[in-house]
Every structure is written in C-alpha cells, then in structure tokens.
C-alpha cells in the first residue's frame, strides 16, 4: 500500500512539491534557530564552563575596557585550588553584537596548547611559537573569512601571518585567533605592555569553583585594580546577556516554524482527503480496514513532513557545517554548528508534526460512512 501513498503524492506533484518546499524552508529555519540555542547552551554549560574561572576587571564589560596587571597570574596561581593561570589579552573588531566578529586572544603559545582544547588541523605549531607575528586561527573563522595557512590577515592595526588552522571540540573556540601575548599587547595604540584583559583560571579537580572565585577577588581587592571572578559559563552568559535574551526570544521563532509546517501539511492533507473521500470509500469496500485508511492518510502527511523536514534539515546542517556562522559580542562568540541531535530532533519534529497534521483527516476517513461517501461522490 506504500506504493499507493507514494503514487498519490507524486500524482498531485504541484501540491506535494509546494508543501514539501514550505516544510523544508520552515524546518531549515527551525534548525538554524536550534543550532543557535545549542551553541549558547554549549557555551554556558559545558565542562569548560564550570571548571574554569575568568578574572575580569570589576565593573567592566567590553574587553577593551578591562585592563588587569599581567602579574596577577602569579598571585592567582598561589591560591589554593588553582591548577594553572592563563593571562589573555583580548582584541575584538566589534564590541557590539555582530555576525562577523573577529576575536584575537593573545597568550603564551605553550599555555594555549596545554590549557585550551585546540588541535592543529593544518600548519605548524612550532612556527607559531617562534614567529612573533604568527597566529593560529579557528576553523570557523578561516572558513568564514576564506583564510588559509601562509596568508597575511590584517584587521585594524593588527596584522598577522597565519601559521596554522586549528579545530576544537568546543565550537566557540573555532571562532578565535590566537597570537603571542606580547605581540597583541604591543600592537595596540594605547600601550598595553604588562596588562591583559583577563586571566583564565584552571581549577584543581577537587576545588570549589565559587570559593576560589571569591578568594581571588578578596586577595586582589587590595591591589591596583579590583577584579570580578566568575565561572567561565556564567561570565560568557553575562557577556552575551543581550544576545541571550534575543536567543531566548528566538525559540518562539522555532515554534512558529513548527506551527507553519503543521498548518501547511494539515491543509494539504485535509484538501487531499476531502477530494478523495470516494476513493477511501472504495478502498474500504474492497476490504481495507478503517484503521487501514487511517494509516494511509497518516502515511501521506508523515511522508510530506519527513521529506520536507529531511531536505530542510539537510540543507541547514550542510550550511552550518561549511558556513562557519557565529554570532558574538564583547569578545565572546556563539558558534552555529551542526549536530546529530539537531538533525534527529528536526526529523523527530517533522514526524510528530506529520502525525498531528494527518490525524484529523485520517480519523475522518476511518469514521466515514462508506455508503454516503460513495453516493455523494
């Protein structure tokens, strides 16, 4: 009987094509919205987010305004529970929300390798370590900006030679460009030698993150610049708070997409079934059970949804994989990445929408009077 369902959809190809296209577009948007939300979730709730601290200047927000002494790293390193400290100079081309944010992190190459989850995909780490203006860039920004190993990349006053492209299990890392700390400190107009934007603190496995954060702020309160220390996840959520609100609102857009697919497929299925009540009456007359016609109608609507959802999510996952999309603000970025869960949830949503959209007309065919349907045809 699947042949019957398939041929019915193909026979009404214009109607089917329009429905599938509509469903595909809506599921495409649903996937993109989902990937933004996943990206935010990963950023604020990964293992990295809870076991690392960010020490920032108190009452400062944009990376350009936070100026902490580099030697704070020594003081922080002595606090119980701290395993390692990474002083980082951050430079960004745009402190406001942007879809093409470029973020430089200047730090010691050896510590980057040991403390950051990066793995070189191409190029040479030793060249990065030895060449003063060398940089390693994340795969995402390389894709977005069309950069490769050996290229010179200039933005604002900063000009770097790309020594390598890295990938990371933490997608937001792939939006960063790492340079030498001293290089980034010296390349800025206002002298930043001896100053960094933030210190990233790696905790001992047994350390209480909140206690250590409080301890750092207390210890540094008497120093020249007061600090505010938070878990990395909380720091990033706070940095991206405007975006978090927007992304929170965007999930309604995802629901709207689901609603759109639902109404589209429901309309098509209802119209299709009403046109073919006689056909279903004939099928029941020759022995198809009422539940059998119910399944046929459901199969039609589910197939429309799954094909549309499959195409939409397929295109979305490809675009996310190769587009290198990211949104960021104040030096923190959210990467839009494809994931198995995103693909499965899109298909699952398509399946559920297909079932819900097809159920009312399916019940109608199962409960129809065969005689009346044959007579009124």
């Amino acid at each position, binding site marked *: 009987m699947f042949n019957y369902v398939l041929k019915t959809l193909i026979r009404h190809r214009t109607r089917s094509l329009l429905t599938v296209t509509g469903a595909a577009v809506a599921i495409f948007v649903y996937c993109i919205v989902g990937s933004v939300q996943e990206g935010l979730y990963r950023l604020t709730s990964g293992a990295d987010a809870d076991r690392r601290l960010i020490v920032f200047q108190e009452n400062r927000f944009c990376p350009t305004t936070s100026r902490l002494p580099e030697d704070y790293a020594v003081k922080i390193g002595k606090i119980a529970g701290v395993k390692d400290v990474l002083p980082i100079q951050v430079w960004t081309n745009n402190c406001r929300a942007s879809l093409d944010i470029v973020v430089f992190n200047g730090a010691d190459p050896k510590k980057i390798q040991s403390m950051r989850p990066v793995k070189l995909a191409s190029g040479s780490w030793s060249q990065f370590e030895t060449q003063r203006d060398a940089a390693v860039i994340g795969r995402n920004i390389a894709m977005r900006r069309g950069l490769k190993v050996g290229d010179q990349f200039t933005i604002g006053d900063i000009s770097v030679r790309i020594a390598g492209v890295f990938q990371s299990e933490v997608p937001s890392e792939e939006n960063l460009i790492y340079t030498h700390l001293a290089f980034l400190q010296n390349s800025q107009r206002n002298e930043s030698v001896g100053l960094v934007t933030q210190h990233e603190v790696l905790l001992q496995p047994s350390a209480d993150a909140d206690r250590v954060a409080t301890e750092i702020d207390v210890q540094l309160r008497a120093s020249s610049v007061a600090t505010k220390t938070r878990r990395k996840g909380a720091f990033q959520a706070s940095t991206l708070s405007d975006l978090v609100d927007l992304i929170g609102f965007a999930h309604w857009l995802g629901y709207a997409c689901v609603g759109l697919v639902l109404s589209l497929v429901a309309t098509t299925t209802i119209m299709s079934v009403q046109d073919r009540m006689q056909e279903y009456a004939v099928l029941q*007359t020759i*022995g198809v059970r009422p539940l059998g016609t119910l399944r046929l109608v459901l199969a039609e609507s589910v197939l429309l949804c799954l094909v549309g959802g499959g195409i939409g999510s397929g295109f979305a996952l490809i675009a996310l994989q190769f587009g290198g999309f990211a949104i960021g603000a104040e030096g923190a970025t959210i990467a839009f990445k494809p994931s198995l869960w995103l693909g499965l949830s899109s298909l699952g949503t398509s399946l559920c929408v297909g079932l819900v959209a097809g159920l009312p007309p399916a019940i109608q065919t199962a409960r129809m009077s065969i*005689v009346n349907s044959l007579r009124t045809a």
Partner: protein
Amino acid sequence: MNILELRNVTKSFRKGDETITPLHNVDLDVRQGEFVSLMGPSGSGKSTLLNVVSGIDHVDSGVIRVNSQEITSLSRGQLADWRAANLGYIFQTHNLVPVLTAYENVELPTLLLKLSAGERRARVELALEAVGLSDRAGHYPRQLSGGQEQRVGIARAIVSHPTVVVADEPTGSLDAETSLQVQSLLKRLNQELNITLLMVTHDAHVATIATRQLYLDRGKLVEELRVERQ
C-alpha cells in the same frame, strides 16, 4: 447449497421528518453459482439491499448469512476483513484508483490477503486475462475507455476469488455497445467460473442475462423469474 441467506431483513432511515424503510422483512436465498438480478423503481431498496449484503451498510433487524457466516453481527473492522476475503464489488462508475495502473488496481484486493508475491501475480494476471485486458495492464485509468475501465473493475472484483460478487448498475454508465460487452463478460464469468453474482439494474434487458430475476418494490421482494441455464 445456499451461499447467501437474508432473513427478515429490515432497514430504515430518517429523511427529515419522514422515516423511509427501503427494506422491510426481506427474505432471500441465493445458491452457489446463481446469477441474480435485482430490478425495481428508484427508491425501491435494491441498492440498499446490495449495500447490506456487502456489509457496507448495517441492518436494523434481521440476519444476513454468507456461506453460513452471519455478517450482521460483525464489527466494522471484521466486516472489512470479511469483504476482503469474500466479496467482490463492481461499481457503476468503475471507481478505479486513478494513480494506479490497471494491474495495480486489480492487485489491490490481493494485498489484503495472505498471499505470496507469486500467487498474487498469478491471480492478477489471470483476472486481467479473464476480462481480456492483459495487454492494458500497465495503463492508467485515464488511458482506458469506459468499457475497459469497467472490465478492470470486474477483474478487481473477482481477483480475490470471492464467495459473492455484487454489481451495482454495472452497465449504467456505458454506451449500448460497451454495455453489451460487459453483459457478455458477466454472463461468461458466471457460467465459466461459477461465480455467484448479485446485480442491481434499472435495465430490464440487462436483467435478462441473469439466471434469476427479482423485482423489489417499496422494500419487499414482489416478483421472481427463474431462467434455466442452457
């Protein structure tokens, strides 16, 4: 042996304030291999009789047995299973599924039976051959003439080797020449394959192809004519 038995079958329905009783205490016995035609004026209850025998409409009272099985007590689902295994239905307007080929239309009822792919194919080919349309198997209904469509409808009705085949005005929508071809086909199927046929018709001439002619009026069987088969 009676293949079909109706006992005190009554069926009524409301139309506005009026209660119409198209079947009133109808008794009928049909033997295996009989070809019965049902005639009568409009509203006499002949289509209703066909519908209740087919199990697509229910009776108010009385009993219908087909091959000793009482069908009046079956649920909708059970009736569907029963129809798939025991009933062939020939519609006035062919009612073929437009998206399926002639072969696939004839194959439909066999998909509801527990048959192997080989058995299914053999049955469909035999049914199409019986109606003389083996060469049109791959054609869609829109590519067939009215007469050919009706012959596909007949093949679909006999493909599952049903106990009874019912036909609702099978020549009603055909021109005179095509009608004669279909009449001849029905007669041949009854004689050669010993298929039990119950046919509703308005046309007195068409009714003469049956071996037994019944006349219904206001819900009662009022006249009967038996013709001995040559």
